[in-house]
């Protein structure tokens, strides 16, 4: 009898499991909401970014629904967690497809987005990665063709090199630049390459290029070499850990010329490592900046602060824009059909968001201005807004 009980229990469990399996396969039903999926890093290593992004998305959805929704329907967010892992990102994307979402906010971390995009593209669901900068997210690396349903709401890394070059040449009026590259990162090499090309095209000279490796701590040797070159600007497109030490050691050595870098600088830790004094006269490019005199941006910042009791980060702002962008495309297309949304994205003329006005390039990257930030008392502040062309 005891065994019989066990068998009954086991078969009951099996039946339940089977019911759950098939139960989830139901067809699409017509609903009075527009379902937009999010596949974000809610837990795991990059949870801080994912949660910032999610708060931005939620804020945008609340605003849209409060204003009456889109096409008379409310937007419903289907939020899934990808645990900051590529396999989970793929699994979440698959689930979103089953849920019948019309568009997806793809993961912000490039590796996760790369796993999710093939599935969404295969299902012909348009996806936008708010902050994934890897070129392969929108362009298939084997065939070199653009992935038709995949977009990003930010510019790709090399663009920052161009932007910084025009800022240094036109706004700061500098002519002799030295570059210090993080040789262990493709990101830094890409930025340096595009900076050099754009800067020499503008008539400037790159007087020397030196290199370091990630996790280096003593930069006195390379800095001495650079000091001897006597540049009037130094470009360091690395990450904040090393950049912080470089700035500190350079200032201690008596190098007083301005420094510049990319969004790898964007971390509160930079000021902790370098110290507020060393950061005076340094600039970096980024996707987003809090502009005190821009009403649209400040409204967003204040609404975000009111809802979450903290300041929005880059991913929060980009994801907020992504949702508003999708809402605009759905409204213009007059339909929430995934194919219509994809067509709308391809034909998008312009969209005005808190990270600037944008449209899409041929490779589905956002075409928009980059922000240049400088430091005031160790805090990044808006300095300029630059578009490369």
């Amino acid at each position, binding site marked *: 009898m005891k065994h019989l009980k066990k068998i009954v229990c086991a078969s009951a469990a099996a039946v339940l499991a089977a019911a759950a399996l098939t139960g*989830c396969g*139901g067809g699409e039903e017509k609903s009075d909401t527009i379902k937009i999926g999010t596949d974000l890093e809610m837990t795991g290593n990059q949870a801080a970014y994912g949660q910032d992004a999610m708060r931005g998305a939620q804020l945008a959805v609340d605003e849209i629904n409060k204003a009456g929704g889109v096409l008379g329907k409310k937007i419903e967010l289907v939020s899934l967690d990808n645990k900051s*892992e590529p396999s989970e990102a793929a699994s979440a994307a698959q*689930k979103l497809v089953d849920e019948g979402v019309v568009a997806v906010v793809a993961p912000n971390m490039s590796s996760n987005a790369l796993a999710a995009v*093939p599935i969404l593209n295969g299902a012909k669901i348009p996806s936008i990665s708010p902050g994934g900068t890897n070129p392969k997210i929108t362009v298939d690396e084997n065939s070199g063709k653009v992935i038709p349903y995949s977009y990003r709401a930010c510019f790709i890394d090399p663009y920052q090199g161009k932007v910084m070059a025009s800022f240094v040449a036109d706004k700061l009026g500098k002519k002799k630049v030295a570059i210090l590259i993080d040789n262990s990162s493709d990101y830094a090499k890409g930025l340096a390459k595009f900076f050099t090309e754009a800067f020499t095209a503008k008539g400037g000279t790159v007087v020397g290029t030196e290199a370091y490796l990630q996790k280096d701590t003593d930069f006195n040797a390379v800095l001495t070499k650079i000091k001897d070159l006597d540049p009037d600007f130094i470009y360091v497109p690395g990450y904040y850990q090393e950049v912080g030490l470089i700035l500190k050691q350079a200032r201690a050595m008596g190098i007083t010329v301005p420094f510049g870098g990319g969004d790898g600088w964007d971390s509160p830790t930079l000021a902790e490592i370098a110290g507020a004094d060393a950061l005076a006269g340094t600039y970096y490019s980024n996707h987003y900046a809090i502009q005190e005199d821009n009403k649209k941006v400040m409204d967003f910042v204040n609404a975000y602060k009111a809802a979450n009791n903290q300041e929005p980060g880059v991913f929060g702002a980009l994801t907020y824009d992504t949702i508003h962008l999708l809402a605009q495309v759905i409204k213009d297309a007059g339909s929430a059909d995934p194919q219509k949304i994809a067509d709308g994205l391809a034909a998008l003329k312009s969209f005005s968001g808190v990270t600037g006005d944008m449209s899409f390039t041929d490779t589905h990257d956002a075409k928009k201005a980059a922000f240049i930030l400088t430091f005031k008392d160790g805090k990044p502040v808006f300095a300029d807004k630059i578009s490369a062309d």
Partner: protein
Amino acid sequence: MQIIKSLRKFDLALLVLSVAVFAVLEVLIDMRIISSFWRLQIILIGINVILAASLNLINGITGQFSLGHAGFMAVGAYVSAIMTMWYDLPFGAALLIGGLAACIIGVLIGIPTLRLDGDYLAIATLGMGEIIRICILNIQAVGGASGLTGIPRLTTFAWVFWIMVITLFFLKNMINSTYGRSCISVRENAIAAAAMGINTTFAKVLAFAIGAFFAGLAGGLFSHYFSIAHPSSFTFLNSYNYLTMVVLGGLGSMTGSITGAALITFITAALSDYPEVRMIIYALCLILLMLFRPQGLFGSQEGSLLLRRLMNRRKEAKANGSTLGNN
């Protein structure tokens, strides 16, 4: 002879059963009755079963506490991906090479570390798994921190299912062979086993190598399904996850490993709608299971054994009943 015959019959029955299961699932998938999310989960269950069963050979059968399974999986994932991407090898050959590469690493690492036991071995294998991951993280040729992308999506349900069946069949026969029994003797009492003339180091390294081989196969299936191999998929947390499957099912029980892998993958998937509370519920499930079944769902026994015992008892009861009736 009688026993061997009945064993063969049992194998045949298992094979028929797996063909039937495959046919049913394949039809369900083809007819799109199972939604694509659960299709993905079924494939994931298959891959996890291979991992759990091969880890069970090391941890459960041989009694060596290894925490580096994700490392072997990573080797298989990357090597097989390189084979299909750079050398255009057919998928089967690439998988095999991935498995063999993991196996070689397993032997190389196994020979020095398997002299340790208990906690020391656990720490050494944990370190090994991390070393493999960090090496990959710093090899720019395979993508470094951004992962190896653009891997062709070759893994299908059929590949996963049949490799899983082959794995289970191999492991089952291996455990019942002389080698398997020497592995079990090492688990039960290494000193006594050595005194009986069993080469305990050989048994340990053998289990380690075979376990690593199948983990490598699973890694190849994994990277060719998600078309990306990324270091973050092979952290020690993943190793813990596979260990959890094995312990949950019951250390030393293959049926347990299968159930554990299926159950944990299922729970994780079913809770994906509740990202905030997912880990809490998941942990609660584990705590409850461990409270009520500290030896794991199956203990160290096999499902088939339980079934056979049950049937025997029925038969006995029937026999008793009939004799009673005759009387």
